[in-house]
């Protein structure tokens, strides 16, 4: 891209961003909406600073991060195992993969009442929510990756009488690295959403809980600040995973 053109592109982006912010500020000071529904940019910035300096935010962030990390660990592990089994066995794939595909896009939050009953209202039900969210993209991606493994590699390993464990660790897992990272990438995003949504529904800790707490107290600048932080945090995790998977 020529430097002059790149500059025009940057200016267009800046102009659009300024337009959006100005429109927001104008709406905030117009009095058209109920007070505080659209708080001014300054108040949102002040709430952002308050949130970022409050110890409570970091304590709740730790809770959410813990739930997310455990959910990812269990969900991706289960996803890899099921994906390997579905991808390696034509029979299992014909028997069950259709169900996994059909279940994958349904809104997982509808399982939350069942998870609440099974695991209680504490961290466990949020972890379970993140786990089932993460499981499907990883399983589907790994299964597709296994089917893409060159048959000659599998035949060579079979001719050496490799055990199923050796087949999984020496052939399938190295060959499906790209598919696994792709699945994990999708899984990270949906697990974060699963955990946070579950926290907004019923919890006593976590970032989702803080958002709902601000909503119930009608602390709109605080709620907007938290939502911005959530979006940036999830986008940050997303970018980090993308960078790792590319490297």
């Amino acid at each position, binding site marked *: *891209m020529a430097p002059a*053109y790149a500059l*025009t*592109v940057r200016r*267009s*982006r800046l102009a*659009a961003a300024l337009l959006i912010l100005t429109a927001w500020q104008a709406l905030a000071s117009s009095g058209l*909406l109920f007070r505080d*529904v*659209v708080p001014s940019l300054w108040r949102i910035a002040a709430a952002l600073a308050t949130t970022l300096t409050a110890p409570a935010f970091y304590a709740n962030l730790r809770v959410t991060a813990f739930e997310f990390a455990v959910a990812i660990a269990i969900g991706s592990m289960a996803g890899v195992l099921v994906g390997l089994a579905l991808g390696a066995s*034509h*029979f*299992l*794939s*014909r*028997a*069950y993969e*259709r*169900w996994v595909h*059909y*279940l994958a*896009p*349904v*809104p997982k*939050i*509808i*399982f*939350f*009442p*069942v998870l*609440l*009953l*099974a695991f209680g209202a504490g961290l466990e039900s949020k972890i379970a929510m993140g786990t089932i969210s993460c499981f499907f993209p990883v399983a589907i991606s790994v299964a597709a990756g296994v089917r893409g493994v060159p048959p000659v590699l599998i035949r060579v390993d079979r001719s050496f009488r490799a055990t199923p464990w050796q087949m999984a660790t020496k052939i399938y897992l190295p060959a499906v690295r790209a598919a696994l990272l792709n699945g994990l990438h999708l899984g990270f*995003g949906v697990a*974060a*959403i699963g955990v*946070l*949504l579950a926290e*907004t*529904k019923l919890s006593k800790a976590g970032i*989702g809980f803080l*958002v*709902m707490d601000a*909503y119930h107290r009608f602390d*709109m600048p605080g*709620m*907007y600040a938290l*939502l911005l932080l*959530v*979006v940036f945090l*999830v*986008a940050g995790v*997303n970018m980090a995973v993308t960078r790792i998977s590319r490297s």
Partner: protein
Amino acid sequence: MPRAEVRLLAPACGVLSLIAAAAALQALIVTDVVSRYVVPPPTDVVMAIARIVREEHVVARFLLTSGETFGSGLLILAVGVPIGFWLHRSALARRAFEAWVAAWAAAPLVLAYPLFLVLFGRSSLTIVVLGFAAGVAPVVLKTLEGLTATRRVLVDVGRSLQITRGQMFRKILIPAALPEIFTGLRLGLTFSLINIVGVEFLINFGGLGQLINELAERYDLAGTYAAIGFVLLASMVFFACMEHVERWLRRTH
């Protein structure tokens, strides 16, 4: 095992093993190994289906959720296709904003549902707007992709016949990009439906999502499981139909 046999036998084994798992669960619940206050017996769930269809107005709720998704779909088409067309026409706009649309597509918008609640109230409008916000980006991106992939020769023939801009749009660009636009619409409606049912559940308002929440709050366990099964079935039918329509559209184009 020969492939033809696997093709017939495997799906049957899959269904039978699920039925066997349900029977095993029933046995565990009847013998009190698994608490019936956590997992209701599968037979109770099956019997609850007729009850919730009759008493909880499942058909009306199904139509409400479908209507909200349809409303979001119309908004998505009305806004997404023109934006896609604009990004196709203006190279500068595409260079500046295509990445923004992609970022929007990846943003966890459903987490902002309290914001939509504040702006639009606890109403169907909130649900439709959230469904629209969640599903518009794929239509923009796929419209742009479809228009960009239009064969050069078609556009050149149109120009040589000196057709107007409107005719070029209606007769050449849109028909050529239609399969891609539909792929975008399928993705968009899928995201919309996921978000719509999710938000109905979260804000306890509307159709099928609210039904699950309400039955769970009443501690009607068999009803809750039956309602979850119904939503799963409705989602599966929806996704399968969309896939078939897309395949048919690609074949006929």
